[in-house]
């Protein structure tokens, strides 16, 4: 694949819609199920992923000419692990409450397939600015997915949005449980499929 010809805007929107890491690529599902109980969690983890993705993409795009092809994957892993450590330390220091809420998942960003995949598919072939925008798109896409699931689960599970009481009662406590995360993701994926179906049909007809 040659260097991308997409504009920055296309790169970002691609990450949010066409290649949404949660609903379309179905990568990094663990946090989407595990801690998407509130909108706030989604935003916080989304920011963490965004930073890791952007930093790693830029790093790899910067040094892509100096990476020996044999040690490509170890280099990616090292890069991601370094940035995850940095983000982890910063979050633990400056946002202890949110960090505690997210538990082990911040550290687990290191095993998110989405980041490695973007490095392999995109950053190692493109310039730093393009990789930057692609990283932003992917991070935002991830965040959007997490926020969408978090919205549904927080509203139905606790009757609140971002901690503010909206409904005044708790409709279905079930949605607080992580088991509900599976259903939410499954049903939202199906909705994405359905929208695609309708879109394609419209295009044809």
């Amino acid at each position, binding site marked *: 694949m040659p260097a991308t010809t997409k504009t920055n805007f296309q790169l970002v929107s691609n990450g949010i819609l066409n290649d949404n890491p949660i609903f379309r690529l179905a990568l990094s599902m663990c946090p989407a199920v595990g801690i998407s109980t509130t909108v706030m969690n989604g935003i916080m983890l989304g920011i963490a992923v965004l930073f890791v993705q952007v930093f790693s993409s830029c790093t790899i795009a910067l040094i892509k000419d100096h990476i020996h092809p044999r040690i490509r994957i170890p280099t990616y892993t090292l890069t991601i692990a370094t940035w995850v450590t940095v983000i982890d330390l910063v979050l633990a220091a400056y946002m202890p409450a949110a960090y505690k809420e997210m538990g082990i998942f911040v550290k687990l960003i290191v095993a998110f397939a989405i980041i490695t995949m973007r490095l392999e598919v995109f950053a190692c072939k493109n310039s730093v600015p393009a990789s930057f925008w692609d990283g932003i798109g992917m991070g935002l896409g991830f965040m959007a997915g997490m926020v969408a699931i978090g919205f549904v689960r927080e509203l139905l599970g606790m009757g609140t949005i971002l901690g503010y009481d909206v409904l005044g009662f708790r409709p279905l406590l079930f949605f607080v449980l992580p088991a509900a*995360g599976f*259903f939410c993701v499954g049903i939202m994926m199906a*909705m994405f499929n359905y929208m695609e179906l309708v879109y394609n049909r419209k295009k044809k007809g």
Partner: protein
Amino acid sequence: MKILGRKYLLLNILLIICLFLIGGCKPEHRFVKKTAFKDTNKIVIEFAGPVDETWAKNRSNYTACEKPDPDIRLKIIDVSLSADKKKATLVFADDLNKNQPHVVTATKISSEGKSLGTAILNVKKFYLGYLFSILIGAMIINNFVFTKYLGLCVFFGVSQKKSTAVGMGITFTLVIVASAMMSWFIYQFVLQPYRLDFLQIVVFIGLVSLSVQAVDTILRKVNPLLFKAFGVYLVLVIANCIIIAVPLILADNEYNAWESLMLSLGAGLGFLIALFLMSSVRERLELANVPPTYRGLPIAFVLAGLFALSFLGFSGMSIF
């Protein structure tokens, strides 16, 4: 081929159990064989030989307390001695908190007229049982896939066919045990003493890659047949968050070597069980008329949700 592998696995497990049995019965005083909790408010002390009845039945010869609170003595209301005079049962006024190790002091144990000195005895829950509960806990009760929601990408990726699922599960178990043990070792003896724990992510992921590479090389050389069967899954192992979550949990909870082994083994086997169940169900689902928009991943997620719903039955369970 396969059977041989199974035999070795069994043998290993037997060996491990034997080691536990030897290690588990360490006496703390040469004259005391065993101490244990009994019922809700009793502690039993087994002596190596008969003790003098007048000594044994004297309540003031014993003191007992919870380990963190040595100054707060538990009230002993009665001591009974078995017919062969080798087993004393202390009865307490209140129920004991068995989660807490207890310390029983038997002053000047007297056997056949001789004084054998004072014994400080630690009474705690059966250690083997504790290890077993870690194993079962990680395997089923707190199954990493259905109750902790980790390792999902690989879980959904390889659970389409039973044969792939089993292959992946076995490979994964091998790698996770190897890498978790290495991580535990490095964490305990390098990272923690030198206060380098902030490097844990990098070190653990490096060790995972290393053990994947090692398993790859060893399998290729030692057992090409097995490598042919399982080699393809090795790459996927790194993308599984369980493999990095287990060392992190081990580091957080300060488990010792045996406990770490049990947790990693349980995590691996639990992943295998989850994969196996999911794949057998998904194979059957292929015959079903699933709504078109749900075909593929969405229905797999709904299924996993139903699994998670039924695994709620295990919530709050503690085996020992």
